[in-house]
């Protein structure tokens, strides 16, 4: 059912969620549920656990709506970070290996080659995606394992069967390149 809330800015819906306005809260959930569930599902890989994390993310957004500060980033980025942190916590609580290395190529393909389905659709994201696609494969994998799955350098070294120093260097070099690709546009981005 389309409502007036559908055309409202993200910030307005978030404020409505925080205030307990059922209509605005529902519009907020509908607007962001695919993004939030996508983050949780991609990180955790299990629909039931991902749904729980996604629900927790909306609950945290509801509780902490007043803390959101638009000067520090978009509502979308804020909510995505909440969902990501919760998902990584779940992953870390598991005793098994955080990620199956065989899953990485699919993940990297997903984040570099499907612009129409990504959570953030803007030029900056496009630049980042392009740069990620250009990284040497070991660096791209290290960046994904640390940045998406929250794996430590030690876990990455074990997974990739390389020395710890090598894993750390891959994270460092990969992230520096991504930042360099992301930053230049920062200047005129008002």
């Amino acid at each position: 059912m389309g409502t007036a809330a559908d055309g409202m800015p993200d910030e307005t819906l978030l404020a409505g969620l925080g205030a307990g306005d059922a209509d605005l809260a529902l519009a907020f959930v509908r607007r962001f549920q695919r993004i939030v569930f996508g983050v949780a599902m991609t990180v955790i890989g299990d629909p039931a656990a991902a749904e729980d994390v996604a629900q927790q993310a909306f609950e945290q957004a509801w509780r902490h709506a007043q803390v959101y500060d638009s000067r520090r980033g978009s509502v979308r980025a804020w909510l995505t970070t909440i969902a990501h942190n919760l998902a990584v916590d779940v992953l870390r609580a598991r005793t098994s290996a955080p990620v199956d290395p065989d899953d990485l190529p699919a993940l990297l393909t997903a984040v570099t080659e499907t612009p129409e389905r990504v959570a953030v659709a803007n030029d900056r994201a496009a630049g980042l995606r392009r740069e990620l696609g250009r990284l040497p494969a070991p660096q791209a994998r290290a960046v994904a394992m640390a940045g998406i799955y929250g794996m430590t350098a030690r876990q990455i070294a074990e997974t990739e069967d390389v020395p710890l120093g090598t894993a750390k260097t891959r994270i460092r070099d990969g992230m520096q390149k991504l930042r360099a690709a992301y930053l230049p546009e920062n200047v005129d981005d008002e």
Partner: protein
Amino acid sequence: MSEVNEMSCAEFADAAAELALGVLTGRERARALAHLDRCEACRENVRQLAVTGEELVGLLPAIEPPAGFETRVMERLGLGAPAPAPAPARPGGSAWRAGSA
């Protein structure tokens, strides 16, 4: 000895990305944070890397959640609508709808 083993900017730069992504642990994390307290330039470096990390997470694909997700979230928040209960349809009991067609 209470003397802290100080981390240099060069040493910090090696660990900055891990710190920004939240994957630095233990003593190395403590030393990096101690360095950050004193070094404005390295703080800015980490901030930029952290924003880059957030953008990376923002590239993850959106996925349709399981059916009924939004209803369950609203119930969890105590904002659930007076639920359209999954009651069995009552044949012939929908006269009230006629006017809204």
